Structure formats: C-alpha cells, structure tokens
C-alpha cells in the first residue's frame, strides 16, 4: 500500500502542491486528473522519489520514503514500474535492449530465461516482431508501448503512468487503456495514473482525484464492473 501524507511543493513563489494526501491500496489504480501544468507529473515524481517534497511523507507498506537509505530506495524502485510521458526510451538501444536493461542489471538469469521474459513482454504489449528496431524507427504509440514493456520487465507490483494516452490516436489510446486494465485485473498491479484524459481515467481508475490549484479532491469511486 502507498500512502501520501500532506505533501507540499513550491517552485519559488509558485505553490504546486498544497497538502496532498491519499492512499493507493493493493490491486487498485488511482487516477489523478487535472489540466496541464497543475503539478500532476511533479506529484508522481515525488511519490516515486525522483523529486523531494518541501514537506510531507510518502509511505510504501508503512515505511517512509524520506527515511530510506539510497540502497533501500533502489530496492523499492525495483517494485515500481514507471511509464514516462515521453517514453524516455534509450535512443542507442534496440527495443529488446530497452526492455531488457533492468533484467540485465538486476538478475543473474541465463540468456534463455532473459530472452523468454522479453519475448513474453513483447507479446503482452503487442509488439512481438519489433525487438530489433530502435526508438527512432517507432511511432509515438509504439514508443509508449515499449515504455510500458520496460516498466514491466521486473514484474513490479506497482505501475506508475505519466500521461499514458497523451498525443495518441483513438485506436492506440484504447489499446493502452485496455493494457492498463489488463495489468490491474489479470496481473493484480496497483498503481497511479496521472492524466488529463477523462475518458480513459473513468475506465481504468478505481478512484479518481482532481488536482487543481495545489489541492486534491476525490471525484468518485469507479467500480470495476462499470468497465466490464
């Protein structure tokens, strides 16, 4: 479980987050909605430990992020898959290498097992024959899918998505929305999605919050059944 407690963040005189608190329980996806520039990405990066809050705490299974030593933070991050808004794929690596980088770094798996896992991920994201391509050869939607595949590599229990459907055509948008729902329902992944896409948010979110003027407000609880 992730608990966000009274998080504040200012950039100069600009108040971005003003006492944000909410929880993400197991097998639940929390969606943070809000217009561009309201601090959704900042909040997600604070929860992931990439940005330090001015005050407030983040707890992962009861343990405060700000009290963890760097090694503990690295261990925690193996439990989180992060899908970046711009995909953040490594330009010099192929799709196969991008997905496999965390496996290469953190496991002692034999070559066959590595290949099997990467092949499995490529099939899940629907790009089974694109493993040799580099990011420059992919469309925006495909890059997003590879970003999702990379986040899945170590099979983390938490997935964080930063604007997963932004800038995509309707078909790719629904494909990614379905993938997120699949991860939640079939693979029991909990997570946080920040987006300004209300349509996707209603489909994937177990809970919806609106972030506006630094404050967060719960909109509604969307039952899983609604989508089904």
């Amino acid at each position, binding site marked *: 479980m992730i608990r966000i407690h009274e998080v504040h963040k200012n950039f100069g005189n600009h108040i971005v987050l003003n006492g944000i608190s909410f929880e993400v329980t197991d097998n639940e996806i929390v969606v943070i909605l809000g217009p561009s520039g309201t601090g959704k990405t900042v909040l997600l990066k604070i929860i992931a430990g990439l940005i330090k809050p001015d005050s407030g705490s983040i707890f992962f299974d009861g343990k405060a992020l700000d009290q963890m030593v760097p090694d503990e933070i690295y261990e925690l*991050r193996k439990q989180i898959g992060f899908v970046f808004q*711009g995909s953040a794929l490594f330009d010099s690596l192929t799709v196969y290498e991008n997905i496999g980088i*965390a496996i290469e770094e953190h496991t002692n798996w034999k070559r066959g097992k590595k290949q099997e896992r990467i092949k499995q991920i490529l099939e899940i994201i629907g790009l089974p024959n694109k493993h040799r391509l580099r990011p420059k050869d992919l469309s925006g939607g495909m890059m997003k899918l590879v970003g999702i595949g990379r986040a899945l590599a170590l099979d983390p229990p938490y997935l964080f998505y930063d604007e997963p459907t932004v800038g995509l055509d309707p078909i790719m948008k629904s494909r990614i929305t379905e993938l997120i729902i699949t991860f939640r329902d079939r693979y029991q992944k909990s997570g946080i999605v920040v987006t300004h896409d209300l349509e996707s948010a209603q489909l994937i979110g177990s809970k919806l919050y609106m972030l506006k003027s630094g404050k967060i407000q719960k909109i509604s609880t969307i039952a899983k059944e609604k989508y089904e």
Partner: protein
Amino acid sequence: MTLLSAVGQFGLFLARSIFIPWKLRQTGKRVIDQIFEIGIGSLPMVLFMAIFVGLTTAIQTSYQMIGTVPKYFLGIAISRMILIEFGPVFTAFVVAGRSASAMAAEIGTMRVTEQIDALEMMAINPYRYLNLPRILGTLIALPVLVVFTELIAIISSILTSIYLLKVPFTDLNYGLIHHFRFNDLAGGLVKALFFALLIATSGCFFGFYASGGAKGVGKAVTRAVVTSLILIFAFDFINALLFFR
C-alpha cells in the same frame, strides 16, 4: 554559484561517479565501448594534429637555436617539448573538444528527455551507468593517445629536421637518445591521467545537470568544453610549478 561551491559540487560529482561499487559484468562492456569511442574515434584528428605539431616544433625550435647552440640541442629540445608539454596538452585539447562535448550532449539529452530519471526508476545508478564508464574510458584512452601523439610528432620532427632543415641525423639522434629522460615521458603521462579525469568529469557533470531542452543541452556542451580547457591550462601550470622547476 560561487567558485568554491562550484569546485565542491564538481569534486562531489567526481567522487560519486568513481567511488561506487561496480561489477565487471555490468560495466566492463561500457568501459570498452568508451575506450573505442574516445581512443579510436579521436585517432584521425590526433594523427593530423601530431604531424603538424612535429613539423612546427622542429621548424620553430631550429629557428631559435641554430647558430647559437650545437645542433644536437635540437634533438633535446624537440624530445622534451613534445614529451612534457605538447604531447599531453595538445592531445588533451583534441579529446576535450571532441569527447567532453559528446559526453555533455549525450548525457544532457538523456537528462532533458527523462532518460536519467528512467534509469533511476529502474534502480540503476546513473553515476555508475553513465559517468563511471566514461571516466574510466578516458583514463585509459587518453594516455595511449598521448603516447601515439608523441611518437608521431617526434617522427614528424625528425623527418622535418633531416629533410627540410638539413640537420645531420647523427646530431639529432645524439640529442634525442642520449638526453632522453624517462621522467619526462612518465611526467607527461601522469599529466595525461589528470587531464583525462578533468575532461571526462566536465563532460559528464555539465550533461548531468543540463536543463531547459535543446538550448540547455547546447549550453552544457559549451560549458563542458570551456571548463575542460580552463582546467587543462590551470592543471598544466600547477604541474609545471611542482615538478619541472
């Protein structure tokens, strides 16, 4: 930023990048890639530079000496100037211009496109993944390039002296061989190691802290090259003051 805090930040960055646990299995290949990128990649430019440094050194030294001192002094002067100063310093200039800029551009682009954040989120330490291989690669490649420069520059000087300046080979050879001091060569190579550390750290440092999109990356590249050159000049002076007085 005051000069003192900038120096502190630079030193801390270097310490974080090199005093870090690493495994040969994970980092070895990336170090080798960097050795090839910096070493082999710089060879054509270094070769060109070395030939002209050799040519100019022979002509200028001869202009200042011939007629006032015995001809074998030309051999001594060429050897000392190239081994102590021109070899390490000019090679460092080439590597600073070529590799510090490339490092800052590559790492800076990774910073502004969130690729460094992505490394962090995959629990991969970016200091170990990005900086360590570049620093180690430069530490290995630069001294080898310096030896290559010195060899080519000395050959170029000898040929210029013999065929253009008509200095007898026996005189030249006497100066080169009989007055060769191993300490001159070693001193130049030690200097090259420090230059390597300064060049790679500048390239990685300014790339790592780049911000503000393409313009920010451009600024990082400029700062990396300018800082490398300033540090090379400054360290060269300190080194001369300490060891060659």
